[in-house]
């Protein structure tokens, strides 16, 4: 399955990635190749196989509504690439 140039641009936009024309072409062939590999799965006849949403047959797993202490603020912010005071700092999203 060959993706179109426009489809790759669309996917990049959803991921908020800016791609050059050359990059778009490069990823077009790479992502198309990945999709082709998955196409193999379509060769299996699944007519009588019910759709599976989960791999383990579990249901109704709950927790009680009890609040417990969260992580210390400093630990939560420890991995922040950038911070301002006790906030994470991120780039504005440009449309």
């Amino acid at each position, binding site marked *: 399955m060959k993706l179109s140039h426009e489809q790759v641009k669309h996917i990049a936009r*959803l991921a908020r990635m800016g791609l050059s024309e050359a990059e778009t072409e490069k990823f077009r062939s790479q992502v198309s190749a990945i999709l082709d590999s998955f196409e193999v799965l379509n060769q299996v006849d699944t007519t009588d196989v019910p759709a599976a*949403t989960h791999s383990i047959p579990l249901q109704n797993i709950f927790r009680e509504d009890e609040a417990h202490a969260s992580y210390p603020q400093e630990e939560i912010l420890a991995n922040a690439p950038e911070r301002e005071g006790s906030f994470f700092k991120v780039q504005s999203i440009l449309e």
Partner: protein
Amino acid sequence: MDYETIIGLEVHAQLLTGSKMFCSCNANYTEAEPNSHVCPVCLGMPGVLPVINQKAVEYAMLSALALNCTVSEYTKFDRKNYNYPDLMKGYQISQYDFPIGKHGWLTIDINGNRKQVNITRVHLEEDVAKLHHEHHYSRVDVNRAGLPLMEIVSEPEISSPEEARDYLMKLHSILRYLGVSTCNMEDGSFRCDANISIRPIGCKELMAKVEVKNMNSFKAVYQALEYESRRQRKAVKEGEPIFQETRGWLDEKGETVSQRSKECADDYRYFPEPDLPPLIIDKTWIAKIKEKLPELPEARKNRFVAQYGLLLHDASVLTGSLKMADYFEECVKLAGKERAKAATTWILGDLSRLLNASGTGIGDTKVRPEHIADIIKLTGKNTISGPAAKTIIEETFHTGKSVDDIINDKDLRQVNDISEIQDLIKQAINDNPKAISDYRAGKEQALMFITGQVVKATSGRANPVAVKEILIEELGGK
């Protein structure tokens, strides 16, 4: 050509649980330090395992039942994928094809015209982080991320901004009665987005749908939809295209402006959330939740009419707010059922006027049901006059003092004992010879005038009925 307006509303209500939807972080974040109610689960760290908060599910079931929905036997969570800095994981856990409730309805009422608005679905999801936008960057507070959020989607069957407002107020009232959400519109625990389009009357196809966001009050919803229906009609008239887009309401400017282009459902690439097993909701569980349904606004309104003989309109206003309905019933309990109408008059009249003028909620006023009950009882017994009662409620509103104390402080006890005012009556007769002769000549009004003079001389404390009686006697009968 005439156009009709088609509106569908999407409401998000934060559920009033103690902990978050999928982790045990404290859900009460309003006063908390930024990023202090956060753990690896709600921060979206790799390898963590979310676990469903049972209370949130039961609150959604309760809401679905109150909104006449069918509760799904099988329901599951799905991932909604999109990239935005308010979303830590790059996806939001939501529900796609098997929501907790579907096919419900609620009744709206515009000037006595009742209409059923169908509800498409009620589903659960998680709230996202709060962004504080600065010039070139944003600050992120993750405390709100992972809060249980219930989404209620109406069918596009609302045909005016008035109907939209009434739908929202009815829904708001129901959720408050259920106690599942604080439903505070200012702090965002009750949020509304609208889809609005217009089409030539009789036409079945929908034209481009505009999504309107950022409406933070019932009034804003009404104004934004009013603005948008006018804007779209104008565009069509002038031959300009209407784009399918998201527009934000600017309260201070009173207009909507174009925001980001809308991603469509396909772009969200929904798929079943592998970390959360599905839910099977059996009949026993539904029955158990059904038992918890309280008396809802509609039923309470009808009961007020039947039990207390109230006018439908008064009952509707009283029961629109849970707190006001409770307040009213507390007054009636203290003052007696036969005084229900008087209680209604005081609550919807003087008390509401004082509350509205000062922006106070009925739950926060110093005027307690005890005060209202005392005022009604004392006016009924002629201990205080009508104007004195108005003075008292005003004073209580500001100071919270008891009715008895105010009566004593201000000397408001009505004088029913005529001997106390006999002299004043004699004085009035002497001072008003013209009125006396008018009365004797058959002018009833002259009597009212003199009565008024006497009542005035006692600063409103004399009981006009008693004064009039003694006057007639003094003037040698009729």
